C-alpha cells in the first residue's frame, strides 16, 4: 500500500513518518508541498515540524500549500489522512478536524514520553488498538494546547471524535485532556504526540522492560494498511 508523506518547507519528521510506514509494511511515497499531485497514494500523512517556521500561526501557511487542495478533496472523499503535531495543526487550520492549538500552558517547548488512552478505535488509524488501550508515545511541541468552543467540545465528545486523551498528566493544558481528534467520518485523524517515534526497538520511548523499546506507535500505521485492505475487500 502506498502512503504519501508530504514535505513542506520546515517539515522535520517526514523521514521518520516514511520509516514508520515502511516498518508497518507499507510503501512510503515522498510528496512535495508545491505539487498538485498525490501520485496515486491511498493514504496521506502530514508530518511534524515547524512548517514555515510556525509564522503567523502553527500550520496556518502550510494549510494553504498547493497540494492541500488535493489533500482536502481526497479527505472529503474518504482517504485516510493522519496529521502529526504540526500536521495536526495544519488539519485544524484546513478545517479537516475540529479545534485549534495554542501555546503550551507551561510556556515552553515540552518533550516527554507521554501516556495516552485510545478513546476511539474505530477510525482509519486506530483499528489495531483496543478501545481504552493505554499507550506511550513521544510528545514534543511548543503549541500543543488543544482548544475549541464549548459547543464544539460537546459535539466531538458526543460523536466519539475525541480519539486520544492524555493520561496521568496533561502536558500542555489541552481542554478535556484531548490529545487527538478525528473528523466525523473517522478517516482524518490529528494528534499532538508522535507515533512515528515509537516504531523501532532502540529508538522509541523508554518502557519498563527496556530502554527506548516502546513500539506503541506502530499500530497507527498497521491500522491504516489493514483498514484500507478491508475497505477494498
Amino acid at each position: 500500500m502506498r502512503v504519501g508523506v508530504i514535505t513542506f518547507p520546515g517539515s522535520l519528521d517526514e523521514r521518520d513518518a516514511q520509516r514508520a510506514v515502511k516498518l508497518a509494511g507499507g510503501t512510503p511515497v515522498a510528496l512535495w508541498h508545491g505539487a498538485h499531485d498525490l501520485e496515486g497514494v491511498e493514504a496521506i500523512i502530514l508530518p511534524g515540524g515547524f512548517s514555515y517556521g510556525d509564522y503567523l500561526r502553527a500550520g496556518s501557511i502550510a494549510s494553504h500549500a498547493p497540494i492541500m487542495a488535493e489533500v482536502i478533496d481526497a479527505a472529503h472523499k474518504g482517504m485516510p489522512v493522519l496529521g502529526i503535531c504540526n500536521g495536526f495543526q495544519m488539519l485544524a487550520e484546513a478545517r479537516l478536524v475540529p479545534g485549534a492549538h495554542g501555546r503550551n500552558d507551561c510556556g515552553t517547548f515540552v518533550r516527554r514520553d507521554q501516556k495516552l488512552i485510545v478513546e476511539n478505535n474505530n477510525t482509519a488509524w486506530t483499528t489495531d488498538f483496543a478501545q481504552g488501550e493505554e499507550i506511550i508515545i513521544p510528545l514534543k511541541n511548543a503549541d500543543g494546547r488543544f482548544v475549541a468552543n464549548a459547543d464544539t467540545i460537546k459535539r466531538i465528545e458526543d460523536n466519539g471524535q475525541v480519539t486520544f486523551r492524555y493520561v496521568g498528566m496533561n502536558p500542555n493544558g489541552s481542554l478535556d485532556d484531548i490529545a487527538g481528534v478525528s473528523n466525523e467520518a473517522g478517516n482524518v485523524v490529528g494528534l499532538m504526540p508522535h507515533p512515528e517515534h515509537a516504531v523501532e526497538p532502540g529508538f522509541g520511548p523508554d518502557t519498563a522492560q527496556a530502554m527506548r523499546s516502546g513500539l506503541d506507535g506502530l499500530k497507527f500505521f498497521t491500522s491504516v494498511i489493514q483498514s484500507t485492505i478491508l475497505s477494498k475487500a
Partner: protein
Amino acid sequence: MSTHVADTVDNAIATPDKVQPYGALGLKDDEYAEIRKILGRRPTSGELAMYSVMWSEHCSYKSSKIYLRQFGQKVSEKMKEKLMVGMGENAGVVDVGEGWAVTFKVESHNHPSYIEPFQGAATGVGGIVRDIISMGARPVAVMDQLRFGAIDHPDTPRVLHGVVGGISFYGNCLGLPNIGGETYFDSCYQGNPLVNALSVGVLRHEDLHLANASGVGNKIVLFGARTGGDGIGGASILASDSFDSTGPTKRPAVQVGDPFAEKVLIECCLELYREGLVEGIQDLGAAGISCATSELASNGDGGMFVELDHVLLRDPTLTAEEILMSESQERMMAVVKPELLDQFMAVVNKWDVETSVLGEVTDTGRLVIHHGGEEIVNVDPRTVAIDGPVYERPVAYPTWIDALQADSADKLARPQSGAELKDQFLSLVASPNLADKSLITTQYDYFVMGNTALSFPDDAGMIRVDEESGLGFAIATDANGRYCQLDPYQGARLALAEAYRNVAVSGAVPAAVTDCLNFGSPENPEVMWQFKRAVEGLADGCLELEIPVTGGNVSFYNQTGDAPIHPTPVVGVLGVIDDVARRIPSSWQDEGNNIYLLGYTRTELDGSAWAGTIHNHLGGVPPVVDLAQEKELADLLQGAAIESLILSAHDLSDGGLGQALAESVMRFGVGARVWLDEIIERDGVDAATALFSESTGRVIVSVPREDDVRFLGLCEARNYPVLRIGVTDQGGEDAKLDVQGLFEVSVAEIRQRSNETLPKYFG
C-alpha cells in the same frame, strides 16, 4: 538609497593622511601600521572594516596560534589514519567506515549570550550547524555546554531562561536532536556565562566539500537570508572586549536568528551537493562577507572579483562597509561553474532561497570588490584571512597558584556516621551542578530523525549513521573549571579523560577530539599561562590516547572587570560503534545483577564536588590522570560490549561513586544493595572517600550473574582492578539504595532531592 559614498582605492591613494578610526574598530597602532605597509597606502574604509574583523582575536586566533600548532605537531601516524580533514577548515572530518564520514565541532557564543541570551544562544546553534553544512554534511545532532553564574544570583534566571529558550527554539525548529551537554553553575561565570554549541554531521566520503574558490571564471554566489544591519562588527567588538558595566550598550551587535530560513538552507545545500552543483562553499558567520570572500579566495586560486551592489539587502541604507561586516545569519557563499549556474538556480528556486551572483574567481591573486562602479577593496586575500598578526603574549606563573595548591581538602572534616554520610550524599545529589537537569532537557527534542540511540541523562549521546548496518557514533563533552583553576595542565587532561571514558562506557571506540577553549583575557599573563598549560595538557593527552584534535574554537576575554573565569577547556570526544544495537545503557533496568567497580579509589577530594558543596572549598591538586589506564579501561569496556557481558556502565566523575549510584538508581527506578567494605580495605580509604572521591579511571558496571565468570576473566586478563560492590535490587515504589551498614535511602527521596533544585530557582 544611502547617500554615503564609499571610500575608494583611488581616494585612499589621493588622501594618505586621512585619519581613520582603527582604534574604535579594535585595531592596535602597530596593526594599523602593518596594514598600511602591506597595502603600500592607507586602507580604504572597506578594507579597514575587513582587516579589523578578520584580525580580531575571534577570527585570527592571534594570541593562541602559536600554542594551537601543537595539535598538528603532537601526532602519531595512527592519529592521521582516520582523519580526512584536520584543523583549519570549518570543521574536522573523520572516516568512520563503510564509506561514511563524520564531521563535528564545538564553538563558543559566550559574549552575545550574556547581552541577549535568547538570540545569542540561538545564533550560536545556527552558526555551528552552518559550519557542518559547509563541509558537505547533513547535520544530525547538536549538544550544548552551558555555564552560568551562581544558581541563587538574581541575574541567573534571565540568562538561563534566555539561553535554554534560544537553544530549544533554534535546535528544535531545525529538526536536530539535542543529545547531551553540560550545565554548571559557578559564580566565576556570573558576568560571563559560557554558551558553547556543538554540532555533528554525517556525509559519504565523496560528498566532502571544502571552502575554496578555485577555477578561474567560476561564479561567486551568495544565497540564503538577505543581508541586514544585525551583528555589524560583532566579531571584533564583542570578542575583543571584556564586559565593563560602565561601557556603552552593545545590544545592536548581537545577531538575530531565523531557524526556518536555516532549515530550508540545509535542505537546499544538501540537494545542491547531491546534484554536484557546488565547487566550494563557505558559511557566513563572524565577519560575514569579509570572511567568506577572503577565506575562499585564500584557499583557492587566490583571486576574486566581487560587485557588492549585487548583495541582496534587507536594509537598503547599509553602507559598503556595513555590508562587508554584517553578520546576518543563515547565509552561504558558493563557488559554482558557469555552465552549472542555471541548474544551481533551479534548486535554490525550488527551496525559495534568495540568491545573487556577486562575481567570479580570478587569477590575479587579489580580492577586488567594487561598489557603485568604483573599486573599494583591492587586497591580497591571504593578508586578510591567513597572514594576520601573531602574538607571543607574555606568560606568567600565577602568583596565587602555589598557595591554592597547598590548601588541600585533606584537612576538611569528613563525615563518619551513616547518618552524616547519608545527609552529605543527599546534599550532593541536590547540589546545583549534580541535580536533575530535566527542566532544561525536556525543552529539547531528541527523537527527531529517529536515529538517537542514547541521549541525556546517559553519559554520551549516540546516533545511528547507517540504518542498514547500524553503524553509529557516540559523543561526549566535559570540562571541569575547578580542576583547571587548580592546575590547567592536569585539568585539560582530566576533561579529555572524562569525555573519553564517557564515550567508552557507551560501547563506542573513541576516535577524535574537538575543543572549545574558554579563558580570560590573553593580555593577562597569568591567563596566558593557564591557556598555554591547558593546550599543552590537551595536546599531550591526545598524543597519549592517540586520538587527534580535528578542530575547535578559542574564546578569550571571558571575564568581568579584572576577574577571569576559571579556565574552561571544553573537550568533546567522538567515538565510533559498529552497531548501535550493542550500545551500553548508563543504568541498570533489572534486579539481581551484580554491580562491579572498575578502578582504584584514592583519597582525591581536592577540587571535588564534595569539597565544593559541603565545605565551599576549592584548593589542592586535582586527581591523578593515568591515560594509559583510561585506554586499558576503554579496551576492556569495548571487549565487554562486543561479548554483550555488561548490562550497563556508568562513568564515575563529579560527586564520585555516591553520585554514580544515585544516577543509576534514578534512571529507571531500580534500587541497589551496595557495600563499601572491600573498597575501604583494598584501597585504604575511609567510607567518605569511597563515596565522594573523584579518582579517575573508574566505572561501575552491572553484569548478569551468568556472565560473572567471563566478565571477571576479561578484567583479569587485562589486569584491571575490579571489585564486586553490590547487586541491583527491586524497582517500583519501594525501591531503595542500601549502602550496607551505613545508610538506606529510598529512590523516591533521592529523586525528590535531585528534581527539586532547578525548579526551585527557575520553575
